[in-house]
């Protein structure tokens, strides 16, 4: 910080402000209701999108304007906005889906990246495949996340180390391969797909890295600046102590 002159710092700050104001970071979130879309965004960016375990929090297509706090540094008083395009009720009501899909078609070409969330619990891919067929032209900016791997059979998550059991791990690999194949068949190309658990933070780092790679090169630094987690956040303290002791 002391390496920059005041004038240089001001130039960088002003350029950042212009870039973020004229073109705020935008994510398109797709996935049928209940797959943990909001939980995923909240885990990556420490946002507070509403999460409901029963019904969708809202039935309406949303463009949510998330204001992220800048806690310290020279831009403490500045606001950074993350826009999230979402249809929380997608897949819940056949009468509403066409309208949601039309809105996605209008909005998705303008987002930086599309995060498509699936649930590891759900083998039925037909709905997602049908939706994907309508958006296949945007496949280059898509990242598929298979969430809720903590609920994969036999559901014996190893809480002590916050990792799936070895048996779960093998099933998770099978699920990832299966979903990849089914999605690839729709668009005729390989897809970026990451199995993870937003609740446990499992493989969130991989999901974020793949997301970064999917972004246009000039936009990556913005999303990385908003990243609000590290994989170490999810390792139990007791495990950290053991690892430290074993060194």
């Amino acid at each position, binding site marked *: *910080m002391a*390496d*920059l002159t005041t004038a*240089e*710092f001001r*130039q*960088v*700050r002003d*350029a*950042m402000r212009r*870039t973020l104001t004229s073109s705020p970071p935008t994510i398109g979130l797709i996935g049928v209701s209940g797959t943990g879309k909001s939980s995923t965004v909240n885990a990556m960016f*420490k946002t507070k999108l509403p999460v409901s375990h029963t019904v969708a929090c809202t039935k309406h297509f949303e463009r949510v304007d998330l204001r*992220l706090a*800048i*806690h*310290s*540094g*020279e*831009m*403490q008083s*500045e606001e*950074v906005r993350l826009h999230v395009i979402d249809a929380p009720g997608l897949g819940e009501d056949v009468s509403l889906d066409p309208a949601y899909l039309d809105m996605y078609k209008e909005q998705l070409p303008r987002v930086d990246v599309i995060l498509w969330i699936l649930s590891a619990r759900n083998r039925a891919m037909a709905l997602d495949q049908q939706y994907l067929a309508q958006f296949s032209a945007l496949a280059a900016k898509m990242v598929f996340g298979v969430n809720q791997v903590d609920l994969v059979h036999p559901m014996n998550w*190893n809480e*002590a*180390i916050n*990792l799936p059991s*070895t048996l779960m791990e093998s099933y998770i690999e099978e699920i990832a391969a299966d979903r990849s194949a089914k999605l690839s068949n729709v668009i005729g190309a390989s897809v970026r797909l990451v199995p993870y658990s937003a609740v446990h933070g499992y*493989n969130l*780092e*991989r999901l*974020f*890295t793949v997301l*970064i*790679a999917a972004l246009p*090169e*000039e*936009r*990556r*630094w913005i*999303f*990385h*600046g*908003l*990243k*609000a987690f*590290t*994989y*170490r956040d999810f*390792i*139990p303290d*007791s*495990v950290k102590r*053991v*690892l430290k002791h*074993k060194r």
Partner: protein
Amino acid sequence: MGELSEEEIGRVHQYLASQETLQREAALKSQESFFSWLRKMSLGHIIGKIVDWGILAIKKLFGWG
């Protein structure tokens, strides 16, 4: 919590190592992106002053996150 088995400790090490590699990969891509952006903003001259900071340059300058 009971004592961890050697297998569990091994799995944790393996997982942490993979996540660390991924974290660095994302950081490197984002750093390149940031420096490209600086050049595009005609601010390439400051890159030499912050290159030691790497991707932390953004957070260090502006305390994001």
